[in-house]
């Protein structure tokens, strides 16, 4: 299946040809022809000045758009503390809810976490759906999916947002499959088509080489996981009023085949890489494993987290959990300082949306300088040592 060109309306302008990210369109006999490479991404439909290209679309028999109501946010928590991304979801969710005149709800699961509901309301939630029980004390795919699916079926929200955290990216797809609805991963922009109450979900794809805007037209809820640290945080207003709902959800038939037998919190002193506003990263230019301590020291002085390129993770100078890049983490800090990192594309994929990028590298041709806002060409060990010295004097 592919998009189809209405030959009568095609004027042969060929604007569609370069618009196709898959090279699936060519001109034959003065009209556009679409090949089997077409993935129906829709880029050409947008571009055609004659509106001559159409997508094969039809509203399915089971379309249930009429029934959705309200925007929900999954209030992920760990050890009683609400995950920081949730405040970003509340801010984004509040704006969307106001645009379509619907309620913002937060879904809070845990044990003994009723106290956190107040924080969620203060940050924008009109309603908090609270499920407080021993079985929700620690995140569990099975229990959480069952409980939240039951909540969704009972209350039928229109839109449901999750943080694209490790747990969020495990829960959301399982839940979406159970509810047979659409889910978009790792959104960096959210908007809403007010007339159709359709969430416009924008996210990077192809390793960040393109951006795609996606909709879920005929199923509800419209689900999305949202990249942390992209949206601003909601501010707490103690005067905000809201309702806490403790629904009676029957969960007798959760087939538990997974048991948590142990947990280790690593890097307890260093901040969580995906939550950090400031990240200092090291690469092969550091020269040796010992020099990584300079990265750690600078991060500590700036109150930031440490990260590493794949090259030094492979060498064992830094743990995999700190790897940034195509096969590691993608982060969006306010400040990213790349020390001795050349800036190979695989690494850039993981950090190029950082708000401010600083690069230190002895090679003036290093590709990292093409994305850096500030760059220092020099010996990374020397520069870091000097920076640390200067910062210590300031304290």
């Amino acid at each position, binding site marked *: *299946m592919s998009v189809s060109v209405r030959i009568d309306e095609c004027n042969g302008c060929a604007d569609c040809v370069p618009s196709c990210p898959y090279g699936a369109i060519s001109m034959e006999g003065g009209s556009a022809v679409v090949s089997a490479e077409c993935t129906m*991404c829709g880029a050409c439909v947008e571009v055609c000045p004659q509106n001559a290209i159409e997508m094969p679309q039809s509203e399915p028999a089971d379309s249930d758009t009429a029934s959705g109501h309200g925007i929900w946010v999954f209030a992920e928590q760990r050890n009683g503390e609400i995950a920081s991304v949730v405040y970003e979801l509340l801010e984004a969710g509040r704006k969307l809810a106001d645009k379509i005149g619907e309620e913002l709800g937060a879904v809070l699961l845990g044990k003994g976490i009723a106290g956190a509901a107040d924080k969620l309301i203060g940050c924008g939630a009109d309603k908090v759906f609270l499920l407080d029980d021993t079985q929700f004390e620690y995140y569990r795919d099975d229990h959480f999916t069952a409980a939240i699916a039951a909540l969704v079926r009972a209350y039928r929200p229109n839109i449901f947002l999750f943080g694209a*955290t490790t747990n969020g990216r495990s829960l959301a*797809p399982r839940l979406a499959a159970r509810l047979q609805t*659409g889910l978009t991963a790792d959104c960096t922009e959210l908007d809403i088509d007010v007339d159709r109450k359709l969430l416009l979900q924008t996210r990077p*794809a192809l390793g960040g*080489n393109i951006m795609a805007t996606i*909709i879920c037209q005929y199923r509800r809820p419209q689900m999305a996981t949202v990249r942390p640290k992209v949206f601003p945080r909601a501010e707490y207003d103690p005067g905000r009023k809201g309702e806490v709902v403790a629904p009676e959800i029957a969960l007798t038939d959760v087939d538990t085949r997974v048991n948590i037998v142990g947990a280790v919190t690593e890097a307890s002193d260093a901040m969580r890489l995906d939550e950090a506003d400031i990240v200092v990263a090291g690469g092969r230019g550091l020269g040796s494993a010992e020099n990584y301590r300079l990265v750690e020291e600078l991060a500590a002085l700036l109150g930031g987290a440490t990260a590493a390129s794949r090259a030094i993770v492979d060498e064992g100078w830094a743990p*995999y959990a700190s790897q940034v890049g195509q096969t590691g983490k993608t982060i969006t800090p306010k400040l990213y300082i790349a020390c001795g990192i050349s800036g190979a594309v695989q690494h850039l994929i993981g950090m190029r949306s950082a708000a401010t990028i600083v690069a230190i590298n002895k090679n003036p041709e290093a590709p990292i300088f093409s994305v850096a806002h*500030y760059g220092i060409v020099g010996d990374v060990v020397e520069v870091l040592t000097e920076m640390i010295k200067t910062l210590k004097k300031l304290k």
Partner: protein
Amino acid sequence: MRIIVCIKQVPDTAEVKINRETNTLIREGVPSIINPFDLHALEEGIRIREKHGGTVTALTMGPAQAGEALREAVALGADDAVLLSDRAFAGADTLATAYTLAKAAEKIGFDLILCGRQAIDGDTAQVGPGMAECLAIPHVTCIRRLAVTETEKFRVERMTDDGYETLEVKGPALFTVIREINTPRLPSLRGMLRAKKMAFEPWTAATINAEAERIGLSGSPTWVVKVFNPPLPDGQGEVWQGDSAENAAKLIAVLRERQFV
């Protein structure tokens, strides 16, 4: 133990370049590779087979050329491979893809399914959990260690946002793996010779008894309405050469001004 490893043939996204004049992707000459995370999944499957016996079947959904990825999987050590290929599968989003792969897995039969954490073109990390849900089996994402403790019981270490967690899982189960789990081997000569001789008869929607409204475009609730280029880094940054001590001090001054310090 019957192990299925899901693999995907993807463009090497690190090689994709933007044509600055037309602002479009240059897709010619971009090599197709097995998704890097899937190589780790395949390696893990082979290790489990080496330790506990059984078979490793590589499974992929794609156009006919995805057969090349299967051939590579066999060269690396998979016993056999299944190519799901049908025009009816085209346009599938992650939900439809998960369903299609799940139907194939059901037909093949399995005790363990291994997937890479995410594909480097879609970057969604959604198909693994979606497949597990379709098959009504437990799943664990981002595992860095896998052990078989008894028949049908697995012990895994799962990466969390602030560390790791150890879980015991009753099979059959599906796991998605991260790079840390192993170092993939290189293809063996024997494997390459075997792979050369293999023919992959495509499995179609009929082969797997798929419901038409759950595959391909019809089975995809999500829909791309727009594709555009991200703002390109403008390379307008300041680059300072010269004395390191001076530059270091200059940088600190800038960071202070920007309120990072």
